[in-house]
């Protein structure tokens, strides 16, 4: 790194003082949008720009943009981009004493001074930073952040990891009046979550978009009690979604395409209903699924006579056989599931008791918390001998 040019002739383009810990926590969230290997060097950088209330930190990989406003005392306005990882690592290492950040306009060098510690980072002119998607309108509706965070974890797990069918790598967001529905499926299972939305605009809000599950994961990561509400806005062109949090904005490109008609695959009835302690079932299912990636050994469920039996057959580890007390209504049934899907579903539901609605060995089953209809998970069985 070059030495900082000395002398009074130096013109500074950005100067502010900021708390390293505040900057650091924002940077750790924002830099998640930095593409690890980008051909465009400026995309490895974060954009720092002064605003009236502080310092805005933004990163983008063109699909996902995350920005956060960090409380700062702005001494001189300006913008610059600097390597995201370097900056984040350096700031994280600083003591909790206010640091000063200043940029030399000519060299685009960022100098950070913290006590006696000084460092220089090579920047790239902010004009090279790609134009960011601009939110034209105020959020259309708002949801409770903690509820949304849970909804995302409950559904994103069922999204497909394979980019081959892009719509399935996303989570469907459907808003209808004051209800927001999140849906994800990887063709084998389907997760559906409903939560309450507070409409902020005049008139009827209704619409459906598909947001990459990965991007929603970044949103969920940013949610904590200091950010209690999440506003949702769509670009006029309907190709971007914006999530606004107290001090942050996360915007994502939307996935285009037709989402499968999910309502059609949710069975309306069941031939067997099993109610039992979620904890017991979860524990048993975990034992049965020793190797999560090992999909070729499904877990078999046998329901009947006041109990549910879990069987994991694999010649190598021996049989695992665990009858659990259960309330069984309807026909006795034996059905097999991919252990991972069953585990994911059970982990996603709330409440003490789980309710399994089964439809024989070849038809979809529904897993939900007893007495709750805000979340359900449909699982397709494995056909076994």
């Amino acid at each position, binding site marked *: 790194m070059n030495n900082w040019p000395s002398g009074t002739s130096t013109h500074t383009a950005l100067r502010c003082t900021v708390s390293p810990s505040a900057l650091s926590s924002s940077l750790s969230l924002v830099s998640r949008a930095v593409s690890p290997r980008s051909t465009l060097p400026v995309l490895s950088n974060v954009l720092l720009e002064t605003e009236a209330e502080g310092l805005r930190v933004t990163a983008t990989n063109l699909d996902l943009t995350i920005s956060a406003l960090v409380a700062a005392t702005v001494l001189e306005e300006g913008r610059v981009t600097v390597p995201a990882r370097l900056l984040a690592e350096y700031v994280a290492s600083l003591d909790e004493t206010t640091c000063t950040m200043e940029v030399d306009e000519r060299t685009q060098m960022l100098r950070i001074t913290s006590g006696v510690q000084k460092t220089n980072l090579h920047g790239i002119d902010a004009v090279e930073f790609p134009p960011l998607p601009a939110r034209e309108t105020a959020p259309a509706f708002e949801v409770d952040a903690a509820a949304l965070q849970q909804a995302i974890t409950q559904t994103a797990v069922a999204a497909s990891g394979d980019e081959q*069918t892009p719509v399935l790598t996303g989570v469907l967001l459907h808003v209808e009046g004051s209800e927001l529905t999140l849906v994800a499926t990887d*063709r084998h299972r389907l997760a559906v979550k409903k939560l309450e939305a507070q409409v902020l605009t005049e008139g009827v809000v209704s619409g459906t978009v598909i947001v990459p599950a990965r991007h929603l994961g970044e949103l969920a990561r940013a949610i904590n009690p200091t950010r209690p509400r999440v506003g949702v806005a769509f670009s006029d062109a309907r190709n971007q979604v914006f999530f606004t949090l107290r001090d942050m904005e996360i915007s994502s490109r939307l996935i285009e395409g037709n989402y499968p008609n*999910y309502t059609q*695959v949710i069975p309306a009835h069941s031939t067997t209903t099993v109610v039992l302690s979620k904890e017991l079932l979860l524990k048993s299912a975990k034992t049965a699924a020793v190797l999560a990636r090992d*999909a070729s050994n499904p877990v078999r469920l046998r329901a009947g006579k006041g109990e549910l039996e879990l069987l994991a057959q694999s*010649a*190598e580890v021996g049989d695992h056989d665990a009858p659990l007390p259960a309330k069984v209504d309807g026909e006795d049934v034996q059905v097999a599931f991919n252990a991972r899907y069953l585990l994911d579903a059970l982990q996603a539901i709330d409440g003490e008791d789980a309710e399994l609605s089964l439809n024989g060995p070849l038809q979809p089953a529904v897993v939900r918390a007893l007495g709750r209809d805000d979340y359900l998970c*449909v699982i397709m069985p*494995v056909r076994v*001998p």
Partner: protein
Amino acid sequence: MTTPIRLLPPQVADAIAAGEVVERPAAAVKELCENALDAGATRVDVDLEAGGLVRIVVADDGAGIPGDQLQLAVARHATSKLETVGDLARVRSLGFRGEALASIAAVSDVRITSRPPGEEGAWLLHSRAGEVLEHRAAARAPGTTVEVCDLFHNTPARLAFLRSERSESSAAVRAVSDLALTHPEVGFTCRSDDRLVLRSPGGSLIDTAAAVFGRDAGELIAVEGPGEIAVSGLISEPRSHRGSRTGLVIVINRRRVHNRALVVAVEEAYAGLLPVGRHPFGVVEVTLDPAMVDVNVHPTKREVRLREEGRVFTAVQHACWSALQEARLSLAGVRLPQLGGGAPDAAGGAEPELELREGPAGRPVELWPHPLREAAVREADGGESASITDREQAETAGHRLADLAPLRPLAQTSEGWLVAESPRGMVLVDPHAAHEKILYAELLAEGDAAIREGRAATSQLLLVDSVVSVGAAGVERLSESFAILAGLGFQLEPFGPGLVRCSAVPAAAAHLDPERLVRDLLDSLPAGGDAPARRRRLAALTACHAAVRLGARLDPREQLRLLERLVVTPGGLTCPHGRPTVIVLDARSLRRAFGRPTV
């Protein structure tokens, strides 16, 4: 070979398939060498110029041709080897038609110099385009030299059909190599444009095979299958393989033959051990009652018809398969640094390589797995007499691999390899290859069980069907394999023009996008090909896609589970592409590598 040469009675001559014997230089080379072998030669020296087009010289130290019979030797249907039609059924000599020399002489300039061992001097016969130009006394050590110049000079049409000089030359060399392999006791040399291209010492088959297949061929595995249909030979280790089938020499009663079924029989024995599209090489010799062979199918004697081909097929497959099972796992490119001599890394700065040799007791610890048993043998054999059952095979294989059990995971390297410990020493595992082979074996085993029990194979049903657009031709090609795919757990059906609907996938492949998987399956479907081969290929592809990637992190429980499954997987020492799944670093090798005294 002192039987005089006589003209065959016309009806005998007619009984012999008509047609051109010599269609390219390689064919002339083969005929001349065969004559030398029939004459009991112990050495045959071949010299080629321009792939044999300009000049072919074959010299031997055999029985020779008496001067007064030289003219007869180049006459059509003159042979010393056969006299009645009945003899034809019991052919043991390579030549029997009395046609080769005459055919060659008709299209070239031939000089035969020959001296039977008992005679004082040699005689030379010079003919051009079938016409005798000269017949005189000459000098030569006992034996025969046939020099053929200007082959096809008078048949431009034939000349036009020849391929490049290079390919003619390699075909000619291959003809000599084939004979060297079928007659390992005879010493052969072959020069092409003054370059020595083959020198087989004349002795054991191993030495000959080493000369023919070259040093890079690795160690060849001996095949031994005694019996009424005796099978012997040397075949390549699964880790060395070739891009074409030409390296596999099939010999029946000492005659190199081209028999597609037997090539398949050998390849079947390698099922699951070789990469797709790669082929084994070596020589597989079948000895049986000559009455079971009809060699007179093709004028160049290249193809033979076998009575009871199914039995021969099974015998060949069984023998090769057992040989592969017995052979040890020697690992490609794994070489311990030579600590006494120059260290390999001193030379080129290359990474030291590791080599695995023998176990503590001097016995091999690394064993070749056993190929997965396929229905192919049973099918080829009419279903009844398959001599090895799945069960036997699984047990043998399990026992072999069990030498590494219990396999305890120790760590995973940053690149993704697993480091494990076994009673036989430290073991490095390729998790992808291992998982791939486990899934491959499971897919095939489950498919077999499903067929046996008359039920559908285990599969993950789809909640949302996948409709794959593959085009009309794609639908056509896929539908030929629907039944095979169903046996692996796929449920596919035509769904409108150019579309296929997938409503179930193998449970092991549940995490994959069915659309991509179906497309990849279609891409890898070989054009035509027999059903068992197609099935293995589709299973291998599915397993490859479904298996963990090399870089993926596995938690200790997953590692343990993977290793536990591997040690009970038939043929688990190699992946379906033939690469090793494990590398065993036994105590002795490690001690040697570290320069410590071996205990």
